[in-house]
């Protein structure tokens, strides 16, 4: 790979769109897609429990962070413009081809989530690959995906208290999975010098 020549502590390195990196992003996206696929029953189970009290949208918001993990992960491993977007979009595409329950909706959610997670890295100029950059990505992901659900899932017809509760739920979920979990994974990768492989 091109960054073999760089020092092992290459926290600052910029990646390029090489064939190898493209395959790497796609593979990570598919791995995460398949891991979530295994947790797919969670969504259905949560929805079944929450539907009778009309709180089913919370299932969506509770799991949002899980669905938005591929973006920050690929964004951190391949540090360049567009990698978070491509990773997140491909992760959603995997669900479509595995036969997910959202059909064409997953493609569009993938686009939206990809834009959300990419924006955060863009705001930090692709320079902050730390807690700050990660939080920027979490923030933009939550805002962009929530705005999309306001349109798509009719959140705009709910009252303010319910909207607020949904937003906070989504933020916490994205913070835990997209933030804390991603941070732990990146730390493991850092300690094993995987970024310089």
């Amino acid at each position, binding site marked *: 790979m091109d960054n073999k020549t760089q020092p092992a502590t290459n926290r600052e390195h910029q990646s390029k769109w090489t064939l190898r990196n493209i395959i790497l992003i796609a593979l990570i996206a598919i*791995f995460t897609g398949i891991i979530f696929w295994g947790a797919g029953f969670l969504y259905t189970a949560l929805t079944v429990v929450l539907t009778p009290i009309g709180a089913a949208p919370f299932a969506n918001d509770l799991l949002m962070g899980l669905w938005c993990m591929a973006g920050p992960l690929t964004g951190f491993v391949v540090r360049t413009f567009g990698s978070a977007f491509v990773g997140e979009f491909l992760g959603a595409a995997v669900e479509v081809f595995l036969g997910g329950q959202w059909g064409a*909706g997953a493609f569009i959610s993938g686009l939206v989530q990809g834009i959300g997670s990419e924006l955060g890295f863009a705001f930090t100029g692709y320079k902050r690959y730390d807690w700050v950059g990660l939080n920027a990505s979490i923030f933009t992901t939550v805002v962009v995906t929530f705005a999309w659900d306001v349109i798509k899932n009719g959140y705009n017809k709910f009252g303010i208290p319910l909207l607020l509760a949904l937003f906070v739920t989504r933020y916490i979920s994205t913070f835990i999975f997209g933030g804390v979990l991603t941070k732990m994974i990146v730390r493991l990768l850092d300690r094993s010098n995987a970024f310089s492989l």
Partner: protein
Amino acid sequence: MNPGLKLLLVMAIALEISFTQSLIVNVILIGVSFIYILFNRVTFKALIGLIFWPLFPALGLFVSQWLYGSAGIHFAWILFTRIYAYVFLGATFTLTSSITNLALTLEQDFRLPSKFAYGVLAAFNLMPKINEEVQIIKTSALMRGEALHFWSPKLYFKAILSSIQWSQNLAEAMTSHGFVEDQGRTHYRVIKITRMDWVWFIGLFGIVQVLLFFIRY
């Protein structure tokens, strides 16, 4: 129909019905897609799955909108049918198109750089192996008395390590088969967008516009 154009059409319509609110158009889209799928010899099991699984999110949205929404039951029905419209529209694409043809047409007709088309295709073809690898990672952890779940950082860490190794191998294998990045390529299998493809694309898209314009209920 050309798979690239078909994907574009499906996504455009799905995007459009997210912004518009017409119950009848949603139902028409579901019906037409359903008939199209039937003509393409879908298995009975797949069909049942298509109807059964979306029931959960659709019903969930319906009930919450009905109980707490300010727009009444009509809007709840729109959301319910919208979920099914997404699924059946998506199925018209996924049940009839191969990922290989999609990659070929995206490269040849949509000017996607060949390294993206073939790189992503190579990765997607590994999907069964990736599935296996996830099982291997979990099982070998179990042997050491450690259960890995979807919230365990180690599971992702090991998955990424495999990805790094495999991407290196795949890229080298492709290079040794004569794949050169950013170089022009000739094609053994040529996929073109025919005039009929365009007629279908513009025709179907046009019909949806007309329907959405006139049917507001």
